[in-house]
């Protein structure tokens, strides 16, 4: 069964016990993203302080992959500079679009490397990226400097 490659323990853990879930104030910008084929959706808020990502909070509904990847996202970006966060975002997007051929860097992606198996299932890549796209959009709306 290839299934374990996709549903790594880490993913299922984040799914069952998501980090940072729930919408919080204060925030600078909010983004709503939807996956039009399955109706999964996420509402995500960012709070920037200076060039730091001070908080990310979110709510939504979706599959284990989309929920877990948003949970991992908050672990990876909160407390970092926007530039660092975007380095991780780029690495995560590259991993997910790599069709399983990209070797993830654990130093950059930490728990995010667990999604390497998902990249082999193109239909699920969108799920994995849903929260990340919301984060990218919210930072842009908040006027955050990404470089």
């Amino acid at each position, binding site marked *: 069964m290839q299934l374990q490659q*996709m549903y790594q323990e880490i993913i299922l853990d984040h799914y069952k016990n998501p980090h940072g879930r729930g919408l919080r104030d204060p925030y600078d910008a909010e983004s709503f993203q939807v996956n039009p084929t*399955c*109706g999964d959706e996420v509402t995500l808020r960012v709070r920037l302080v200076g060039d730091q990502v001070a908080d990310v909070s979110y709510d939504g*509904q*979706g*599959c284990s992959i989309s929920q877990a990847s948003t949970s991992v996202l908050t672990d990876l970006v909160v407390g970092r500079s926007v530039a660092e966060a975007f380095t991780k975002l780029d690495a995560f997007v590259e991993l997910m679009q790599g069709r399983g051929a990209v070797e993830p860097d654990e130093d950059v992606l930490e728990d995010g490397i667990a999604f390497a198996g998902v990249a082999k299932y193109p239909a*699920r890549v969108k799920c994995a990226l849903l929260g990340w796209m919301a984060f990218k959009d919210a930072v842009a709306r908040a006027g955050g400097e990404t470089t």
Partner: protein
Amino acid sequence: MTAVTAPLDVAALRADFPILGRTVREGKPLVYLDSGATAQRPRQVIDAEREFLEQHNAAVHRGAHQLAEEATDAYESARARIAAFVGSDPDELVFTKNATEGINLVAYAMGNASTAGPESARFVLGPGDEIVVTEMEHHANLVPWQQLALRTGATLRWFGVTDDGRLDLSDVDGLINAQTKVVAFTHQSNVLGTVNPVEPLVTRARQVGALTVLDACQSVPHSAVDLRALGVDFAVFSSHKMLGPYGLGVLYGRRELLAAMPPFLTGGSMIEMVDMTRTTFAAPPQRFEAGTPMTSQAVALGAAVDYLSVVGTDRIAAHEHLLTVAALDGLAEIPGIRVLGPVDGHARGGAVSFVVDGIHPHDVGQVLDDQGIAVRVGHHCAWPLHRRLGVPASVRASFYLYNDLSEVDTFLAGVRETKRFFGVA
């Protein structure tokens, strides 16, 4: 359901479908339960298209050479056989690229009626007029009407859906009233399997002079449908859901309506006379078939209806009924499963949609896929219906003539395995 027919020899039928011999996901035999999205093609259909292309291909209705004659004959013979398959005549059948285009065609033609001649007056819509749909429509039979309402100022109204997945027909006379210009509804839900009663809606629509548009995408492939007997004004269905090729849909329209309706797409082959400032249009069905048609696809759909006719639409319906009941009964035995729509086989076709407590449909679909079982997950282009039933998405297994009871068992075992995998009791 017609139970008096001989059962299908599914093993023999399956041999006609090359793809069903495939394995997926490291050698698992393919269990294809996604025919509600698109059916697989038997070699008879693929061969018919190939034979046409290798022997008779030319532009139809245009050339005066032998190939053009042969191609035109093949194309029009297909139209006649497809028309007969749904109880209509060839001049009432318009070829479109899919069912979606067929519905858009009617909606846009109605929009165009206000700048067309007086003969199309009955198609004109404006503020105060009403368009009636249902809450269980596929987006294809909802969004075009929303847009038509937006463009013309007409109002969209709809029949609700009951908790058990039937149309709420408690206020037919209120919803379909003197303001109503169009009543568009599905014959068979692609999510719930529900077969809707056509008669009361057509009767009421006729009383008030409203046009009826039937979405027959899920009924025509799976049962004997006689459009003339149903009495609808327009109907659509899609080739690729009934063993035919992609890129072809069918719009049926009553002769006198097609004759009065203004064109939609314009260009070559649909004109009568053209000069730089003005164009007059050909009679139906050509009026609605602008540009080079889907010639080889129509020929192949002709072969598909021949195939379905030989197998027998009643036998297909009876066979699917068997599979559906087995799936419903099996799912009922698994705790934590909620089936959307009718839970028994009465007035329902072979689409079985459900949710599993505690597991997202995408994740259910993934585990099934890992076992070689192809189902569909998502809202199946019926988002408002899912919202109405309080779920964001669902898993759908849908059956066709080439599925058998052992596949239903594999599917049920797969659902149980999904629960085990995610540790849901």
